[in-house]
Every structure is written in C-alpha cells, then in structure tokens.
C-alpha cells in the first residue's frame, strides 16, 4: 500500500490545478452559480477531452484512464480548492462508481466509455443521502416499472441518464433510465450551495432497465468510494479557506497592526492547520487503502467525518476572521462556506459516519 504520492501523481495534481486555476476563478464560479444548469459545457468538454478527468478512475477497458481512487482524490481535491462547477461529482464519481461496482458487464461496456468521455452526463439517484441503511425505501421497482421519488439528486437537471438504486422485492438493484423517459419529473431544488445543482426527481410508473445487483456489501463499497472522493474535495476546499484567511490576516490592519499578529487569531489558525493535517492525512490514507484493497474497514467513514468537521470549522473561521466583510455577498468566502455546509451533510453527517465506524469496529450491539 502506498504511503505517499508518486512523482507522477504530483505531476497530475499540477496539471489539474493549472487547468482549474485558469477555468474556475471565483468570478467564473459566481457567473455559473447564477445559471440554471450551473456549469459551462465548453469547459466541461475541455476537462473531459483535454485533461481527461471524467475517466480518471475508470478502467481502460471502459474508456477510462485506469487510475484509481488516489488519482480521483487528487482531482477532487483540486476541484474542491477551486470550487469547480460541473457535473463531475454526479456523473464521473457517483454514476461512474455505481456502474463500476454494481453494473453488469453489458451496462458497463455500454455506458462507462461515454461517462469517461463526458459525452454522457449521468447521475446517481439515492433516495436517502443521510444513511445508506435507508437507501431504496422510497423508490420501488415492480415488474420493471419504477415508482417513487428522490428529494435531492445532484445535477439531475443536467443529466441525460439516471442510475437509480431502488428496492425490487426485498433486495436492492441498480436501474438505468434516460431522463426524457415518460413518467420522469425533474424539479430543480433551490440549493443552499448554488455551485452544486440539485433537483427532486419523481418516477411515475417509469419503465426502467435493471443493470445490476446491489448487495449490502456493494452498497457499502459505493458509499465508501463516494465518501472518500467527497472527503478529498472537502480537504481541498478547507486548504483554500485556510490559505486565503492567513493572507487576509496579514494585510488587514486594526489597532495599528496586522490582525494576524493577534494570538486570538494565530492560535485558532494553528489549531485549524493541525485539524486539517489530520483530516488530509486520514483522507489520503483512505484512498490508499481503497486503491490497495487493504487497511481498516472504517477508513472511509473516518475520512468523511474528519474532513466534514474540518471544512466547516475552516469556513466558520474564514468568515469570522474577516469580520463584517466576511459576511458580505461580495466577498468570496461564502461560496466555500456553503459548499462546506452542504458537503457536511451530503452522504452522511459526521455523526452518522462516526457511528458507522464504531459499527465496523464491532462495537455496536
């Protein structure tokens, strides 16, 4: 199992960072978040065709790059840092991993190359984003027909294909359906974080195709892979907030001195750095474990719990240390603050993940 990044991986990070620095400045993020679709299709195509990011973690036989969760994590970390707006997490990460881990060979061969190329935008419908134990209770398949609703589906309004984890009898299955099929309703939801588009999706007797089985082990795996990618995104965002906050405290003068010279701020920044070092190390470790198929079973939940609390703490401090300006719309901090809050509760709150850790350690009766 690797314990640090290789030179190639560091070089990959540089490539991703340079692209995003160019394409995802806060002015761009602001422009996109005001739109309904929330992303720039041209930049998305460049991201897929020129940098090849959409297929980072997908095997070469399905048109991907054949890298794994470590490289995906690197990409996600940089996207979190630059607050990239686009269907990457919904399509590549969520739909991509659901298909990869639960899909039939035929479905993978048909859909993954298009997802890897970015020509197909898909998303994964989870009817519960809090706990994987509750997934599939509100979307039910009977005789090939899907009924029910999912309240929060990431980028559903931008997707042309939905992958749905739904109950079928007393088991879960993975189902696929195009978004323009009869009986599907997609209603955009006003999101706390306008940089990640959400929609409510309803299914009224929709004809769906079963493309895979979702055992509880596979659902656990999907949850782990998604959470580790999300934790990377959060660590990247937290680092960005720490960096910009430190810079601000050096140039902002009050009482004749930079506010960064006050211990009241310095000590909180030191604590934040420590917390971030821990969360980042845990997150990278979780990716190393997934890549090697090794390590403690609870590392993904540990990473998500730590990254969530760190990101939110960084966001809280980033606003607070800027004082009044930090609470304005004009200042950029709230963009990351909202992503932090929204990510904190996306795919399991820290408390849910801590309980999952203890369950995996065999400590929950």
């Amino acid at each position, binding site marked *: 199992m690797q*314990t*640090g990044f290789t030179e190639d991986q560091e070089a990959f990070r540089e490539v991703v960072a340079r692209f995003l620095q160019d394409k995802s400045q806060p002015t761009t993020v602001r422009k996109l978040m005001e739109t309904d679709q929330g992303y720039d299709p041209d930049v998305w195509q460049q991201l897929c065709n020129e940098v090849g990011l959409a297929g980072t973690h997908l095997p070469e036989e399905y048109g991907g790059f054949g890298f794994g969760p470590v490289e995906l994590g690197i990409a996600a970390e940089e996207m979190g840092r630059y607050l990239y707006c686009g269907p990457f997490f919904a399509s590549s990460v969520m739909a991509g991993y659901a298909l990869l881990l639960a899909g039939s060979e035929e479905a993978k061969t048909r859909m993954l190359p298009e997802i890897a190329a970015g020509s197909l935008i898909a998303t994964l419908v989870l009817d519960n984003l809090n706990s994987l134990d509750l997934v599939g209770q509100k979307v039910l398949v009977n005789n090939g027909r899907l009924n029910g609703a999912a309240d929060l589906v990431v980028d559903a309004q931008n997707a042309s294909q939905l992958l749905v984890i739904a109950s079928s009898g007393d088991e879960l299955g993975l189902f696929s359906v195009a978004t323009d099929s009869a009986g599907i309703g997609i209603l955009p939801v006003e999101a706390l974080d306008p940089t990640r588009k959400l929609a409510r999706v309803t299914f009224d007797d929709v004809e769906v195709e079963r493309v895979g089985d979702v055992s509880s082990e596979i659902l656990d795996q999907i949850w782990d892979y998604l959470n580790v990618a999300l934790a990377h995104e959060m660590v990247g965002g937290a680092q960005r907030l720490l960096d910009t906050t*430190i810079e601000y*405290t*050096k140039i902002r003068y009050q009482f004749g*001195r*930079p506010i*960064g*010279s*006050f*211990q009241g*701020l*310095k*000590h909180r*920044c*030191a*604590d934040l*750095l*420590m917390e971030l*070092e*821990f*969360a*980042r*190390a*845990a997150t*990278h*470790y979780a990716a190393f474990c997934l890549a090697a198929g090794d390590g403690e079973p609870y590392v993904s939940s*540990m990473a998500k*719990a*730590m990254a969530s609390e760190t990101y939110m703490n960084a966001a809280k401090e980033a606003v607070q240390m800027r004082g009044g300006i930090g609470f304005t719309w004009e200042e950029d901090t709230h963009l990351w603050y909202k992503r932090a809050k929204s990510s904190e509760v996306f795919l399991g709150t820290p*408390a849910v993940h*801590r*309980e999952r*850790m*203890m369950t995996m350690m065999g*400590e*929950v*009766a």
Partner: protein
Amino acid sequence: MTSPEEISKAVSQWLDDNWDQDLSLTEWRNILVDSSWATPHWPEAYFGRGFTTEQSAIVGRIFSERGIVPVAQTGPRRLAAETILAEGNDQQKRRYLRPILTGEESWCQLFSEPGSGSDLAGLSTKAEFIDGKWIINGQKVWNTSAHHADFGILVARTDWDVPKHQGISFFLIDMRQKGVEVRQLKQMNGHASFNEVFMTDAVVAAEDLVGKEGDGWAIAKTTLSYERRLGGVGRSFGSVQAEKLGRVHDEYAKELEVANEPYTWYPQRQGRLDLVLPRARETGAINDPSVRQEIARLFCMQKGAGLASAAAEAKRKSGSNELVPAGSIGKLAASVIARQAAKVHTMISGSDAMRSGPDSAEEGMIAEVLVSVPAISIAGGTDEIQRNIISERVLGMPKEMRADTGPFRDIKRND
C-alpha cells in the same frame, strides 16, 4: 574501520573479551568508557570514535541485542554531557564528562524559574563576579533529579543593562554546598517528580563558566535542542530484563528504578487510550450512542495524528522543502488527544469518576488520568507556545508586538 560489518565485528569482539556481569556497575562503566564504545559518536579526544549517527546505531543495536549495560543516561545528565561536550573548554570536558558517563556524578538542569516559564530568556537569577568567584542568588523550579544531583547546568543573568538574551551566562554549579537548597515540589496529582532549587550566595568557581560571559542563551539553546531530540528529560529509560543475572545488572536495575520512579504517572497524563474500549465494554457505556460518538472522535484524532506524522516524516525523507511543523503539531496533538481521552473516561465512569485511589477504577489509574492530563499541555512548551511556533514559522503570520526590548533592567517582570 568504517563499514557496518567491520564495526559490528570489532564491537562484538571487544564485548566477548570484556563484558563481565559480575563487575560492579561503576567498574564495568569505567572499562566501557575507556574503550570508547560507550559514546562512539563523540570525538576521539573525549571517549568517542567520531562515528556518524548510522555507525553509532550499529553499536547501540549490538549492545541492546546482547543486553549489555550502557553508560549512565537517566535524568538530565545526558543534557549536561552533550552541552559540555559541545560548548565547554578542554578542562571542563576532562573534569566532568567521565563521571557523567560512569554514573558516579549526577546532574540536574537549572533553567526554568517561577518568574520565567514560557519566557525562559526573561530569567532573573543573578550571578555576580566577586573576588574571583561567581556568587549566585535566585530560584529555579521544575528541576528533575535535583534532590540527588551532584552538579547542575545553570543559566543566570550577569548583565542587566543589555537586552534580555544578551545578559545571560551559562554555569556548572556544585549542588553540594551550603548556598543551595533543594525542595521537592508536589504536583496537583499528588506525585512529586520535580524540585525547587533556592540559591542564596551560592558559589561557582571562575573556571566553571561555560563559554564567555553573555553567551548563555546560545548555549542553553544547544541544551534545549538536545532535550527535544532525546524526547524530554522525563521519559522512561526502560527496564532490565528479569532473567538478567549478575552484580552489574542488579545495580543497573536499582539505578533505573530510582530514575523511573518519579514518572509512573506519565502514561496517565497521555490519557490511557488503551483502557478506553475495554472499560466501555465492561461498564456497558459502549451501548450509549453519545459515548460511542466521543470514542470515535478520539480514535479519529489518534489515527489522524499518527497518519499526519507519518506523512510529514515521508515528506522530510523525500527532501521536500515544504514546512511541516511535525514537532509542534505532534505536541499539540498529544494535548488534544489526552484531553479527549479524559473526557471519554469521564463519560464511561459517570459518577464513579468522583472516586480516587486503589479502590477506584483500574486501581486508581482512571482517577490519575483525570488529574494528570493538564500536565501534557504545559510541560515541554505550553500549547500556546506551540501555537505561536506553528502560526509564525509555518503559516508565516506576523509576530506579536513585544514589550521586552531594550535593557533587561527596564522590562516589567514578576517580582
């Protein structure tokens, strides 16, 4: 003789010829010191062979594999030895180094004062040169081993009219004299691991000034860097394996017992994480979801700290220039982990945490955790000092404005 094979062959041969467990501890150590195998990283002129760290490690490994009794290294004596070796003159090295290694003379460190803790350079113990001798007046505190030390390394102020770092000098003081009084200092957890040292017209001979007058701060920093490298004074010095027989082992075991005794509570100040799950299961507290949340938090901190430290070490090894304040972050981490562990132990105990002593949980160990944890965020540089280091040296934040520039005499200080 430089290759690992040659070194290991030579040291093994010498041990075959000389190691004798029926010798007294002092007899054995005198032979060992003369052989230069005791401190091979020291220069040849002073009981060493000028070995590199790697070469010395080979010797150390063979000693420990064969269970050979080493030279004395408990308490602050090694700090004194390394400082004298680095900063002392030839006469001082010849007088003091050998009995430190043989254990015949023990040492203490006289740095901290009641009036200067985090701000060590603000010390106000006074040294005046009168009639060819240095006369010392003042008080020191947190002095490990001072109650049985023969000598002390001492920093005292010799010039009050220059900025504070410039007026300090470094001395070697004889502890066995009328002007030096040592009192044990009892801590809030009931143990007495340290001392206070009162110096009233105590005398230091002119030749026991280390370096030049006014060099004391730079020399003290040398001592402190050794202290950090050795992992602090109050660490465990190990124990003698039970099956080892012979006079030298018996005497060595006694030496270690005396040296380790003040620190039996050190594992407790770190929070005793090893007791968390067993106790949670035994008491049934594990069935309380709010307790489980806090236990999981504790494990996240512990695991995260371990992984972050390993990542920093890997970066350092790969030659990265990125600043990773592993030391200060590790120190701060130990504090938050210990505090969280104490919180979890309290939740597990409930009202039982009101009890103390041998009849309380884990034969009193949990109670000792609860009253010992506050030490971890103070000893060896407070959390606040660590946060200053991290924010200034790593995050590059501006320094706090100072109120202690100019002549020391004019600086406000504790009376």
